[in-house]
């Protein structure tokens, strides 16, 4: 059976420490300021409640990836476990993927002039290890799961109301933050 691996982030556990980002940057030898994982602080205030949380985001390894569709060199492919991989050998640096991904996942490396993105540490997964970001997470907020076997009725997707963008079907889910009474 075809799998779909994806991240699940428990926003109630994430401290916003950035250990996942540093681990990714160091282990993938990304030159600053290039990052394959980003951290954003979100704050939503209502009349009596407030939600303040961190979102650690990387490539969503979408079920229908835009990057794979638009790449003229066939540098992207999707493994049977759902990981969307980018092959730098085939990349011409045309930036089609950079411009088409609604999540800003692929980025141009200014030194190699080629695109790059989170590869979900596929080489480590093949050895039975966790991705660097998951291993570095202090609180266990960031986890890797087989998405199709996960109860996801309590989970949220990072997505947009635009139907055409929902079609990319990102494979990353979030446990929603608990609101705090003011």
């Amino acid at each position, binding site marked *: 059976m075809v799998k779909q691996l994806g991240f699940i982030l428990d926003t109630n556990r994430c401290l916003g420490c950035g250990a996942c980002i540093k681990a990714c940057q160091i282990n993938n030898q990304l030159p600053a300021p290039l990052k394959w994982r980003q951290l954003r602080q979100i704050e939503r205030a209502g009349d009596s409640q407030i939600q303040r949380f961190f979102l650690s985001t990387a490539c969503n390894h979408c079920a229908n990836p835009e990057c794979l569709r*638009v790449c003229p060199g*066939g540098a992207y492919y999707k493994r049977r476990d759902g990981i969307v991989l980018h092959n730098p050998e085939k990349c011409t640096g045309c930036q089609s993927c950079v411009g088409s991904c609604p999540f800003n996942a692929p980025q141009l490396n200014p030194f190699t002039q080629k695109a790059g993105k989170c590869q979900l540490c596929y080489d480590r997964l093949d050895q039975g290890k966790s991705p660097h970001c998951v291993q570095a997470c202090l609180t266990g907020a960031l986890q890797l799961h087989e998405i199709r076997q996960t109860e996801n009725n309590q989970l949220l997707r990072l997505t947009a109301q635009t139907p055409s963008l929902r079609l990319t079907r990102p494979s990353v889910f979030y446990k929603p933050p608990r609101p705090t009474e003011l």
Partner: protein
Amino acid sequence: MGTWEWPLIVFTVLSQISIGIIVGLLGLDCRNQLKEKLFKQGVVVSGILLMIALLASLFHLGHPEAAYRAITHLGSSWLSREILFFILTFVGWLYLLWLSFHPAGKLRSSLLITSVLGLLGIISSAMIYVLPRVPAWNNVAPVFFFILTAGLLGALALVILGGKELQPEQKKSLLNWALGCIIVSIFMFVLYASTIKVNAQGAATVQFLLSSPLFWLRAGLGWLAPLILLLIGLKSQKVFTASTLYLVFALVGVGEILGRALFYVSAVGIHISALF
């Protein structure tokens, strides 16, 4: 906001003029037999423009030496299809060049095939920008804009190239065609601006355009001034002087280059950052 994509601006505008010239030659040939000199001039200029355009497109790539790989994903990538069609157009142009020195082959069918390939190349170019992530582009407008640039600048280039080789009625029909393209361009822009405003990113694009001095420069130089010059010239039935034709071509050329630059700069992409 997008960035100033000069290699792409040069590539798209020049390749569209080049294909516009070929289509114009076909149109003229369908009405009256093309004069040999005009055909040769048109084909040579079209080819030079196409070669400069193709060369400029390489500068957009991070690795121009690997450009050949960009043709390997024809199944879903419009960029791959664009490259394929432009290569085929270039092959068609080579045959046209051979015909211009050995006028024995089937001229009209060769012009037709090269025109169709070129137009498919232009449509593929435009389809690259039809992306769900960029609402201002995610519609049919890029296709119309690109084809209108080809029709407008191609016709004007042919009028200048034709000179005395063109009969007055041929010249008039080309200028009428250019006038029609300007009017349709203005109409298309108004329609485009009013329809993309429905979402936040599209509204940001329209606001950027309308508040940019470059857009008003583009509208004045590329639409309004040539429109007035062409209307006055065609109405008075006088023969356009060469200097007026050069002026109209220069105004429209600057307008189209600015318009294309603004097309890239004004694009606002959706950045998904919310949980739903």
